[in-house]
């Protein structure tokens, strides 16, 4: 028995560290200076899934869509206790907006037939909070956003407390359910040392290919392909091959993927350049502060 949980996770640039050297002199973002991290609320979603497995048995499968580098967050999820990790990566998925992304993820999730899908409420790079609700709509799963506490899970009934910011709601739904999880829902468990030792060597196929091209740059194409196959087989035997699915594997209709499948288009992007220096400075003395207060009173800002 137990529940099959799928957790959607995303690798994001650490926008919280957008200060100092993360901004270039022209005011644009220096992406290279920003480390890529596990989207914070996705860790809460993972923890919620692991807690369900601890209590009721079952499985936790983590999926991520992105470049092969996104395997970092899948490894991190394996360190923390996930049973299975799947990377969805395909050049034809490039340029996907939230609608196309949720379509591709929903195709992948459908193959896993989970009882419960958990997502972080939102990702810190776009802050849109759209992909979770859209996956639910496409799968026909019941949507429960802003999960703060899982109150009860019995048979096929889930009861949770939602935090709406302006209040709370206790709701009950029949599985299958997709829930988006808040950062206040739990404290994610740290990576387990033993699992870290084991899964730090986990790789997806694209990563193996990159390593082989780097190490055997002189070798012919056939020799490299043979080496890739050999390494993947070795990893798979030790349970260290991160599954890698492309759009054909998930059965996605290309009309709804990538740029073509995305109704939203970027018209313009402006960096916020720090202007600076335009303010009027007052010294921190009684005299200076007094002058400032008088000015604020005179122009009717206060008083």
């Amino acid at each position: 028995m137990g529940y099959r949980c799928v957790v959607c996770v995303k690798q994001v640039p650490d926008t919280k560290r957008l200060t100092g050297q993360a901004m270039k002199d022209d005011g644009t973002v220096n992406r290279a200076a920003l480390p890529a991290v596990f989207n914070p609320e996705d860790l809460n979603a993972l923890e919620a899934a692991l807690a369900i497995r601890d209590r009721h048995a079952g499985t936790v499968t983590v999926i991520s869509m992105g470049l092969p580098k996104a395997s970092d967050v899948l490894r991190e999820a394996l360190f923390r206790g996930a049973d299975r990790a799947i990377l969805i990566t395909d050049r034809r998925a490039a340029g996907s907006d939230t609608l196309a992304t949720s379509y591709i993820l929903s195709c992948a999730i459908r193959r896993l037939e989970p009882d419960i899908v958990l997502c972080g409420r939102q990702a810190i790079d776009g802050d849109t909070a759209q992909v979770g609700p859209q996956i639910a709509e496409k799968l026909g799963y019941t949507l429960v956003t802003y999960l703060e506490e899982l109150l009860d899970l019995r048979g096929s009934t889930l009861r949770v407390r939602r935090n709406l910011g302006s209040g709370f709601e206790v709701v009950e739904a029949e599985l299958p359910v997709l829930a988006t999880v808040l950062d206040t829902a739990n404290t994610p468990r740290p990576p387990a040392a033993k699992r870290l030792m084991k899964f730090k060597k986990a790789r997806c196929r694209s990563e193996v290919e990159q390593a082989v091209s780097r190490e055997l740059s002189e070798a012919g194409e056939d020799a490299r392909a043979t080496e890739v196959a050999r390494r993947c087989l070795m990893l798979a035997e030790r349970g260290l091959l991160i599954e890698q699915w492309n759009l054909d594997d998930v059965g996605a209709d290309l009309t709804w993927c990538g740029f073509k499948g995305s109704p939203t288009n970027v018209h313009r992007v402006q960096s916020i350049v720090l202007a600076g220096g335009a303010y009027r400075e007052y010294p921190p003395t009684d005299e200076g502060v007094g002058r400032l207060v008088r000015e604020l009173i005179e122009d009717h800002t206060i008083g």
Partner: protein
Amino acid sequence: MIEVNRIGEVWVFAEQEKGALSEVPLELLGKGRELAETLGVPLAAVLLTAGDGEEMATRLGQDGADKVYLVEHDLLRQYQASTYARVIRELVQAHAPQVVLYGATAMGRDLAPTVASSLKCGLTADCTDLQIGDHTPPGSKELHRNLLLQIRPAFGGSIIATIVNYDRWPQMATVREGVMVMPQPDGQRRATLVRHAASFSGFRAPLRILESERREKKVNLKAARVIVAGGAGVGTRESFRLVWELANCLGGAVGASRAAIDLGFVDKDHQVGQTGTTVRPALYVACGISGAVQHRAGMEESAKILAINIDRSAPIFSVAHYGIVGDLRVVIPRLVRAIRGGARIEGLAEPLEGPGTPPREARG
């Protein structure tokens, strides 16, 4: 999705709870009016409720709606994404609006993506501005006129992106609370009421709402004329009292940066910034707030900004009108003294009093 429909209306989702309209649809009607006039099309509000919608419809008319689509059904008594999304999808398919706007509230951010997914149309989240403009896709010569330019901060607020949808409509966006100016209601204006009978045959609402509790925010930052906000630079929860004191003597509300909240100086209700409240008071005093982009996004529209910071290079000064470089533990008491001693300031007969200060008699 629907086809591009140049004569389609501009719609605003009229968020309400228990028969009371939220503020955000009223803010959206102000902006919606402007967009509809530029496009030369009617502005409509979409009101879903269990009953008694007419009073709210009247208010929507006074605030600028030309038309109100009113859908009354018992299943709409309590909001849930699937029931509301179903009705809105039906309305969009029947009337083909060109623009649909929602507040970026807990409800709007739950509802709009569900509607967008079912219509297979685009949705831009958390817009801070909307305009009408033209767009030519890169690598194409085709000019798309009069599109909704959906302007939003992204990447933690360090860039401003403008998004358009030129082929798959309607053009939908959620709009941040507090960034659009509320219109002045006009008691004479009346909206045309269009009733729509929703078809719920064979439909069962998937969520059972067992408890629902509304919590009034302890602090109303949006209504405050003066906000005194503290950041990590305040240092301790103890010295955060200085922020309260200055707010009290100015009759203002207390705000805080995310950092100050994470440090436990003050409750989350006080948060100003991208993930908190967006404010535009007459005066914003930033005490010990370095001014990360996320914070500035929530306060830079304030009429006057006073920054007090020990670090001259803090980014907060880039949006400030007045600056004091110094230790706030020294500066704030001086400010409080200067404000309370207002009588000594030339031209002022009476000392200034805020609602938080004791009456003059009590001070002796």
